[in-house]
């Protein structure tokens, strides 16, 4: 009997140890998951310059792979996640809804379908294999490209590929094209000499908006803190829009994704960071891709058509322009 009690004792110690490990995460600061899209890497400037502390808000940024960041959000280990308006719908329909409070940018060419040498148009992809992350932004881009070219989704075979592996997968020859965003798409172009982008977000401007999506609980609990985050974002935007800061900004941004500054520079064009005024214009409710409402509605229809999810999502529930508007009002 003594043995059993001793065994139980040691098990207890171990269990307490395990619990202590699990409980070591406290819930105090705002937690934001972000990933390698250039519009979100931009947060790095605010982080490195200590602007969040200056604004009086404690924020913990957690670096993830894109899909892992959305998983972390759904699992509740972060309060907010950087994602595209389309993926917010997918995440909302299949996991956990969220509200966009900042539009960082729209994709202006950095999301690409990159095809292996010998394939120069999207039509050539008929019957070929394409590596994209199923159900997420580049899948959407691919479907849009196919639709524009008068093709069907069934004309290509999707190979579910993590975006950060796309360069290697294209290089290996396992697929004929991949869908990815910078820096991954650029890595693919570089890894496979002679590969070309056959369709980019520049061909469908406004289909991909990138934003900060916050959980309803956190938004309600920490309204003032999130307003401060918005103010820091526009400080970052002002910094980046000033061309005298170009080298400094590039040094910070490129470092986050382990590139050289000169390799990062072309990304700035492919991710159009919206200034405050430009963002306000995009926040206006309107039809068409020039408004985030129109864009989100468009993507929702698209997702339904291609059965990414089954039930229509109410775009307006995902969007909250009040933070940006309040910040704009405070600036005047």
């Amino acid at each position: 009997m003594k043995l059993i009690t001793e065994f139980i004792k040691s098990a207890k110690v171990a269990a307490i140890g395990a619990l202590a490990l699990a409980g070591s995460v406290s819930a105090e600061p705002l937690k934001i998951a972000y990933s390698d899209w250039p519009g979100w890497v931009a947060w790095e400037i605010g982080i490195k310059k200590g602007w969040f502390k200056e604004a009086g808000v404690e924020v913990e940024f957690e670096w993830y792979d894109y899909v892992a960041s959305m998983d972390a959000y759904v699992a509740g280990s972060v309060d907010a996640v950087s994602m595209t308006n389309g993926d917010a719908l997918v995440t909302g329909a299949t996991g956990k809804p969220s509200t966009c409070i900042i539009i960082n940018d729209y994709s202006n060419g950095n999301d690409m379908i990159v095809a292996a040498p010998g394939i120069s148009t999207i039509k050539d992809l008929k019957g070929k294999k394409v590596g994209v992350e199923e159900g997420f932004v580049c899948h959407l881009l691919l479907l849009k490209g196919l639709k524009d070219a008068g093709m069907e989704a069934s004309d290509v075979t999707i190979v579910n590929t993590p975006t950060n592996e796309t360069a290697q997968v294209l290089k290996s020859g396992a697929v004929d094209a991949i869908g990815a965003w910078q820096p991954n798409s650029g890595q693919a172009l570089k890894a496979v000499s002679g590969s070309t982008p056959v369709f980019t977000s520049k061909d469908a401007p406004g289909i991909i908006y990138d934003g900060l999506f916050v959980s309803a609980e956190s938004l309600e609990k920490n309204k003032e803190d999130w307003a401060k985050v918005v103010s820091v974002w526009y400080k970052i935007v002002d910094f980046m829009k000033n061309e005298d800061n170009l080298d400094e900004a590039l040094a910070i941004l490129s470092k986050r994704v382990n590139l050289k500054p000169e390799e990062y520079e072309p990304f700035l064009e492919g991710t159009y960071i919206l200034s405050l005024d430009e963002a306000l214009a995009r926040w206006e409710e309107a039809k068409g891709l020039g408004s985030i409402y129109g864009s989100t509605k468009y993507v929702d229809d698209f997702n339904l058509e291609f059965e990414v999810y089954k039930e229509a999502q109410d775009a307006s529930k995902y969007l909250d322009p009040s933070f940006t508007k309040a910040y704009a009002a405070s600036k005047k």
Partner: protein
Amino acid sequence: MPKQKTPWLRVHKPLSKKRQTFLTILSFLIPILLWCAVSYTPFIWHPDIKLDISANRSDVTTVYTAGDRLSKEYFPTFVDAVRKANADATAGINPNASPRATRRSNQKDLRQIGAVAVKNGWLEHEQTEDDAALYHIWRDLATGTKISKSPQLSEENLTIIKQNWATLSATSPDYKSSSLPETPILKLIPQGTASNPVYLPAPHEVITTGWRDFNASVEEGEITMSARFLQSIKIVFGGFLLSCLIGIPLGIMCGTFDFFSRLFEPFIDFFRYLPAPTFSTLLVAIFLANDAPKIALVFVGTFFQMVLIISKTTRLLDHSLLEAAQTLGAKPTQLLKNVVVPGILPNLYDDLRILLGWAWTWLVIAELIGVKSGLTEFIETQGRYRNFDRVFPIIFMIGFVGFFTDQILAYSKGFFFPWLRVGSSPLERLRQFFGVPSDQNKSKAV
């Protein structure tokens, strides 16, 4: 006695100590020599061109920088594109939208010389964007004050440097960003040397980049390599120790009492076939981010094997020992404490050595779940960006740490279990390990 030459190949006969040492060294030397041969003999393989000088192009988004590798087929296309851009510039065609963009493009063209300057030791690695210093490098190269030995600049490039310097010096002898010409200057023509693919860097490249990564001063908030190393160690040993804490007692109980064996082992036997990585998302959901799910993964990967291995080791204990103790009137508690545990300790020690190696193999997967961390994060990100010269040092380091930990543990077994020593003192074992002839051998020889 005349020395008779013993053959190297003899069935089931050990070689002399000297020969053993020689072969041990050779077993490490052969792969290294092979690696050197493939890397340094230009006519073996070498399908790529490694750029010494690159060029920025305004017509594509793909930026190649010095150190990047291009296939030998693609390199001429790249060079031709740059030559064409130069021809356009001479013809007065400006691809840039604004004077500001042209100045920026010129600035980037000027920076291409940075890689040459670093390679010649004129500038430090961090100075490749120090425009003022680079400006003077252009001057010195144009006037012949400095001559680049490695890489040797082509005639074509020397002409370009002189032409550019004529344009630049006309506006300002020193660097001023505002006084850069508003027409495009000429781009250096890409130069490079034959090299192996990026995944097989040469030994000296691995050593120099490894040295730099380990010694690089990092900015505040960044993680140094030694901190990464500690992070990784924490995961491995955290998971391993936690697993020991439960696994060892449980294993011993199962090996000693049929009751526990029947109660636990069937399920554990089943569970160990569930691959640990499949639990990764589950563990992240339970333990959230940071280290906890990683430690838990190492635990899951090690624990179940541990219980089974230890229970088996316990069962292998010499039964006569138990019987003897029972004859002397030992109670079950005493048997366990005074016979079973001391009896299996040496074998348990060996088991744990193997299991620790096991824990190391889970490290890589563990560090990739949730927020990536430690050495694996570095390997993963650098590998993704194809900087394999930065990946190899880390892989080697993990290997060395594992190898030396195990060697040290194997060696120190003699200290922990002196009764197992077969006539040789620790000092003797150390000598044997390094192949130094011992006093004993010497006296025998005499």
